[in-house]
């Protein structure tokens, strides 16, 4: 009873296997025609768009560039950049277009001007100030060492004795009993 039902199942299992095999062999050809179309028609333009987009800040997610962000505004701005570059505008013109609307905030590289003087020159100022302070400290330290009281020959000998742990017996303080 059981064997007969198995025998009954066998042909259908075989045909299912055959079908799978045929599908596996035929599938690559069947889908080859549907290969994804390239997303960009002009790779050179796209490279310029992405280069520029990496230098522009997204205003929605402020720590991402408009190249990285998936915010709808970033997408719109990327499209603007692409459209304007494709229309033959220069990189500078596109940047000016965005700065006119969103301010210097869109630039990851802030321009050098009155309000950004401290930003640009601050690190150099700190370096100069730090180096100046260090030089002044070193000069003062050298002076302190030079003007420190000099030891006499006796004092030197006593210091050596104290360091060595021997008792030269030249000074009263060294006559303490040793345990």
């Amino acid at each position, binding site marked *: 009873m059981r064997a007969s039902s198995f025998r009954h199942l066998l042909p259908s299992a075989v045909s299912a296997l055959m079908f799978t095999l045929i599908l596996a062999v035929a599938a690559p050809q069947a889908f080859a025609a549907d290969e994804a179309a390239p997303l960009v028609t002009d790779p050179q333009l796209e490279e310029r768009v992405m280069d520029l987009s990496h230098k522009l800040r997204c205003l929605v997610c402020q720590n991402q560039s408009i190249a990285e962000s998936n915010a*709808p505004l970033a997408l719109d701005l990327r499209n603007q950049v692409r459209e304007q570059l494709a229309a033959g505008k220069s990189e500078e013109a596109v940047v000016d277009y965005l*700065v006119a*609307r969103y301010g210097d905030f869109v630039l990851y590289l802030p321009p050098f001007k009155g309000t950004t003087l401290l930003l640009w020159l601050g690190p150099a100022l700190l370096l100069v100030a730090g180096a100046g302070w260090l030089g002044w400290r070193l000069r003062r330290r050298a002076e302190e060492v030079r003007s420190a009281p000099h030891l006499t020959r006796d004092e030197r000998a006593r210091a050596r004795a104290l360091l060595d742990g021997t008792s030269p017996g030249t000074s009263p303080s060294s006559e303490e009993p040793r345990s």
Partner: protein
Amino acid sequence: MKAKFLVPLALFLVLAGFLGYGLQLNPREVPSPLVDKPAPEFRLATLAAPDTALGAADMRGEVWLLNVWASWCVSCREEHPVLMELARDKVVPLVGLNYKDTRPEAIAWLEAHGDPYTTSVVDADGRVGIDYGVYGVPETFLIDRQGVIRYKHIGPVTREAVRDVLLPKIAELARAS
């Protein structure tokens, strides 16, 4: 000599002062370069009647508000009652810029919540929004008789903002001819 020990403390206080001030600032508020510049021109179909258009030039000679809104915008609900009050008091014409929205949804939203706008225009692809430097809805622009943007409010308009900023500025602009 003793004063030397106060140097780190003084440095700390200065740093704390800067950081404390920084905490008071809103990093989402990016000052607009468009303030005191002519409002960018546009000509868009109105929400109520797709075959009629409205532009910034049509508002020349009036002090008016341009409010960027959308039915998908959550904070717009927050400012909506304030805008309704402004409309009820007929302070200034309030033009809505319906930003990246669909017409049926926008109309349904106004029907559900009430329409404070003198007119709403449709900026479906957000191009006019980019011209106005819009990066977050809602945003509100105060524009003077000569068509110059005088103030930009970012985020939902609050009653405090209306009382302390918008109304005094509107009064000032209305006096200046």
